């Protein structure tokens, strides 16, 4: 049996692991910055939910200046800082655990440092530099330079982790020239390589077009080019939010319910698929002039393709859950569902997050459906959709991960387990009500990103009900976060000392093959080349016809 355990393990050392004290502190720092930002971010979210019900609360918070300043902060904190910080921390841990090697502490430190500087600068830029440009920072709306520098630092914090992973992988390969890369590390590293490539678009936009422009070094900017560069990154950033959660669903959740992970080949193909299918950003530009139909239709086809790795993931995760439920004594076709450890807030949060992903994915396909998008584009249907994906599948899963990760990193027992077990349910029903409000409103023409409490015309038929649902759902989501943050603070301050043995890691049923065609999965550079080829095919013609940039847009500050 001993050989089976080694062969089918997803990590280098299945039985032995010690997290170095310095690494532990750095990773904990990242997680705390992430959830700290989330705390402020969800408060701003609550104010926005009330705005949809026609209730403006911004006058009570003069520091926020306006709805749009609050919205910019909400997007930057919840869309950049929180997921970046959580991924940096969680996937550093999984890489260290997977390879059984330390990552260079200097790079971990650099990552944490950039994260804090980046958060501080973008916060300053938004509230004190008057940069209400939203998290998409479309040209010619111009932000203060500190905003663009802040965003750059946030991205650098992720690149530092990627570099640390690659350095560590290289070292591991030297020691194990003929072994397959341990699956947990493989998934963690591919997530970051995918993001490295994806982030090039917005990084080029930010550093070479926007920052010099905000310092008056360029005469103007190019709206279509910057928009395209932003969405080159702006779609796969979604994968970067999602894949750390997939790592948890594949590797941790099965272990938490007492089951195994289905197959090595499946996991590797899913992460490779996400890596290759980076260039689909044009599907955010269906309604744009200046972008030819070739780009839009190609993006549509590839976007449909990206549904597959998620469908495979759903299969694998449900398989593991069923196995776990059956092993705990579940009977019949659905009896296993009841037997799952619902009382464990970490498990409960992740399963409910997965359930919310179902309508999230379906509405995503609706948005991806070229001309159907015309009915939904920039209406509140879109925030309805992405609060089910990033706002529920991702955020609620990260909350679930925190329920074991924070105790693991602090050496404290989770406080208030009996309270925490209800938190995921409140969030789950909250987000469903919120999204049904946003979506029904969207179909009736309710615009997104709009201070609806201040519109100079009568709300259209149905908007009031939709807005009220949005506010009720948003309040429930906020309430559940209050419970979560209370539990976390109490755990950190008053949790009983307890040293956890190891993070939850599932074993594999179908292990990796040590020879034959499957070895190609570990040749990561091949997949990177394939991805660049696809990028050249989709973005090459656009860049050739569009460069050099037409810097015709004069800066505009409408505040």
């Amino acid at each position, binding site marked *: 049996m001993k050989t089976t355990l080694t062969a089918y393990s997803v990590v280098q050392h299945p039985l032995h692991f010690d997290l170095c004290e310095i690494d532990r502190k750095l990773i904990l720092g990242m997680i705390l910055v992430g959830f700290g930002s989330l705390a402020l971010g969800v408060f701003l979210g609550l104010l926005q939910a009330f705005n949809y019900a026609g209730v403006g609360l911004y006058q009570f918070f003069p520091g926020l200046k306006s709805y749009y300043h609050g919205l910019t902060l909400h997007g930057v904190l919840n869309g950049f800082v929180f997921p970046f910080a959580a991924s940096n921390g969680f996937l550093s841990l999984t890489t260290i655990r997977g390879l059984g090697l330390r990552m260079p502490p200097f790079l971990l430190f650099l990552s944490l440092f950039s994260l804090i500087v980046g958060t501080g600068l973008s916060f300053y830029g938004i509230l004190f530099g008057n940069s209400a440009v939203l998290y998409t920072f479309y040209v010619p709306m111009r932000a203060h330079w500190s905003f663009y520098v802040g965003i750059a630092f946030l991205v650098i914090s992720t690149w530092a982790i990627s570099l640390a992973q690659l350095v560590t992988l290289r070292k591991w390969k030297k020691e194990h020239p003929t072994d397959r890369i341990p699956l947990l590390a493989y998934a963690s590293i591919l997530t970051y390589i995918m993001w490295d490539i994806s982030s090039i678009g917005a990084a080029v936009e930010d550093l070479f077009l926007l920052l010099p422009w905000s310092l008056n070094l360029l005469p103007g900017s190019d709206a279509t080019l910057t928009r395209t560069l932003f969405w080159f990154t702006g779609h796969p950033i979604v994968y970067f939010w999602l894949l750390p959660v997939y790592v948890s669903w594949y590797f941790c959740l099965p272990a938490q319910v007492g089951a195994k992970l289905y197959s090595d080949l499946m996991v590797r193909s899913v992460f490779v698929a996400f890596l290759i299918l980076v260039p689909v950003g044009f599907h955010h530009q269906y309604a*744009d002039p200046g972008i030819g139909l070739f780009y839009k239709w190609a993006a549509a086809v590839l976007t449909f393709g990206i549904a597959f790795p998620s469908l495979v993931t759903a299969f694998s995760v449900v398989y593991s859950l069923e196995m776990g439920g059956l092993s705990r004594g579940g009977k019949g076709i659905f009896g296993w569902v009841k037997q799952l450890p619902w009382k464990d807030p970490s498990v409960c949060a992740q399963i409910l997050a997965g359930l919310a992903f179902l309508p999230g994915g379906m509405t995503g396909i609706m948005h991806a459906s070229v001309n159907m998008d015309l009915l939904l584009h920039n209406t509140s249907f879109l925030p309805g959709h992405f609060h089910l994906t990033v706002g529920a599948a991702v955020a609620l899963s990260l909350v679930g991960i925190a329920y074991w990760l924070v105790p693991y990193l602090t050496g404290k027992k989770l406080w208030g387990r009996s309270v925490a077990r209800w938190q995921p349910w409140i969030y789950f029903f909250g987000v469903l009500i919120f999204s049904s409000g946003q979506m029904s409103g969207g179909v*009736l023409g309710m615009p997104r990103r709009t201070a609806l409490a201040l519109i100079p015309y009568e709300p259209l038929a149905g908007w009031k009900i939709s807005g009220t649902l949005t506010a009720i759902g948003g309040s429930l989501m906020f309430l559940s976060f209050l419970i979560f943050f209370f539990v976390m603070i109490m755990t950190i301050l008053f949790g009983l000392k307890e040293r956890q043995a190891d993070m939850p890691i599932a074993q594999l049923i179908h292990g990796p093959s040590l020879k034959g065609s499957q070895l190609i999965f570990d040749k990561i550079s091949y997949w990177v080349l394939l991805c660049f080829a696809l990028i050249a095919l989709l973005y090459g013609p656009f860049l050739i016809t569009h460069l050099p940039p037409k810097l*015709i847009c004069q800066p505009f500050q409408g505040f």
Partner: protein
Amino acid sequence: MDKLERIYLWIATVMLGIFMMAIIYSTLVLSIRIPSDKGKIIVKPGESLVQSVFQTPPFDHPGLYKRGEKEYELVIVGQAWAFNPADIEIPLNSTVRIKATSLDLQHGFYIASTPVNIMLIPGEITVFEYKFKKAGSYRIICNEYCGMLHHAMTGTITVK
């Protein structure tokens, strides 16, 4: 691969294939088209975008123009924070070819609860066709964020 998984993936493939066919059908047969690359505003050296827009026909004269039997052209210029023109009357059952651009920022030109939901981007010309088959009053909404009074950027279309 497991047999169950193979069946599952086949169902998924067929389903997504049907969706894709439906989109292609609605585009080719029902002619529900999306905007695409239909020309740009050329900004000459020394000129500002605002000047160039007003010198580029048809944007030198925004408004509704009759182009044939039941055929109209609607020329729209978006700017912070108004549409020009903002209140438009259109005869019932006429096909309207919308030509629109922006003077300054990115705006949205959305006629609530219709597929007329297009982006106005500085330097780009948006072209879109729609037939108004139902009488009534429609609300135009800018649904792309454009600054502090974005929510006040609105207009009406009356079809009769």
